[in-house]
């Protein structure tokens, strides 16, 4: 372990070489995607080219869901003047998955400017997806001008405070967190005292063997604080989840796939369905990355997640829209 940089994947049981460097490569071959299986809190990673070698049991599970993120409906600039079209392509991709997902998670930035018609368009497009239930958490673009009032009216039924909530599906405990409200000058994403207290209480009653999936917009790990890609008080949230054997954290916001394993926790960020953003520090700012039109769909995507009961395993598969 000594000498390894902090965000390397520490275990590579399949000798795929998918550590951080490998993963960046994986982003370059985004046309093929990555497949990850978590077993006993340890991530196993495969390139999708090895998928045919995996047994059906490894590749599919008893619980399957899909994550989409950063639809940015209303964005109309290069490299994507048609974010509705690429969201439809994402839905087509979801509908074509061999194991139909039971539901979808949307990890925020549904809209670009919080306009009612932008939310309406996304709702309309997602109606054609096979999975009917969608669980949302807001991105900062969804809570502009009204401190999230509209978002909560549309998507926050049954949620607490600023929109956080939890639910159980087939033995897995899902926790939707909100880290885009009340941001402080110079700071990062924030969960805040009330939400942290709720989280501590929410997981108290759960057995340590319960698989946990946390989803929130801004990464709950420090991806690149210089661009605001992290959450101020995420360490406190993760401390409450330490006792669990399997924790999977799904985020959006950075419009690219990144992942990291830290102890029992696997962190994963999803592609956008709208436009890509540069790798950390690889541009003057995190503004939209312009790519040739024919490459656009290879840098957008969806994330498919499978849980195999009894194996303590969550399989995370990213596929592009290409």
């Amino acid at each position, binding site marked *: 372990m000594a000498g390894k940089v902090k965000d390397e994947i520490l275990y590579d049981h399949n000798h795929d070489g998918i550590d951080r460097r490998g993963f960046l490569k994986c982003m370059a071959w985004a046309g093929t995607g990555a497949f990850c299986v978590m077993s006993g809190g340890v991530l196993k990673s495969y390139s999708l080219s090895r998928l045919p070698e995996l047994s059906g049991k490894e590749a599919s599970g008893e619980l399957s869901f899909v994550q989409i993120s950063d639809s940015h409906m209303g964005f109309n600039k290069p490299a994507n003047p048609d974010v509705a079209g690429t969201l439809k392509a994402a839905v087509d991709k979801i509908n074509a998955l061999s194991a139909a997902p039971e539901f979808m998670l949307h990890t925020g930035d549904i809209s670009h400017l919080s306009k009612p018609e932008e939310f309406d368009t996304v709702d309309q497009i997602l109606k054609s997806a096979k999975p009917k239930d969608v669980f949302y958490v807001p991105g*900062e673009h969804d809570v*502009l001008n009204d401190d999230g009032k509209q978002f909560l009216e549309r998507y926050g039924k049954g949620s607490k405070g600023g929109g956080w909530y939890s639910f159980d599906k087939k033995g897995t405990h899902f926790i939707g967190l909100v880290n885009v409200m009340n941001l402080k000058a*110079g700071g*990062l994403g924030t969960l805040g005292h009330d939400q942290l207290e709720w989280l501590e209480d929410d997981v108290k009653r759960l057995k340590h063997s319960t698989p946990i999936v946390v989803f929130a917009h801004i990464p709950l790990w420090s991806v690149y604080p210089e661009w*605001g890609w992290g959450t101020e008080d995420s360490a406190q949230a993760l401390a409450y989840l330490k006792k669990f054997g399997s924790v999977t954290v799904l985020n959006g916001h950075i419009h690219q796939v990144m992942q990291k394993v830290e102890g029992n926790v696997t962190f994963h960020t999803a592609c956008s369905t709208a436009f890509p953003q540069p790798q950390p520090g690889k541009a*003057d*700012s995190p503004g939209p990355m312009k790519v040739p039109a024919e490459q656009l769909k290879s840098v957008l995507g969806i994330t498919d997640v499978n849980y195999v009961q009894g194996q303590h395993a969550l399989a995370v598969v990213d596929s592009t829209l290409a």
Partner: protein
Amino acid sequence: MRRSVSIAVLVAAVVIGIGTIATGQNHFLARAQEKAATAEVKIDNFSFGPEVLTVAAGTTVTWTNRDDIPHTVVSTDDPKSFKSKVLDTDEKFTFTFSKAGTYPYFCSIHPKMTGKVVVK
């Protein structure tokens, strides 16, 4: 059109004349800046430029978002001295600073973006 141009020239000439008489040649430039009483902040590449803007009291400051991504201009004072709506590409926000002081602000969507207006 031609008439309005000549009126503008005439008005400018009168203003310059009054300014010169009232304050003397040495103070003319400073006076002219105060008279103009406007200043600009450009938002480019997720930053405010200039990051620190110094103006005279009474100056109207205009922020223009030149990024492909929306931003806001929000005072960090409590209570907030000013707060823009979300600014999409090329949209502007203006605020007139009537009292001397230091006015820190940030983009509430991208809080790493901070700036300051110093009013003398």
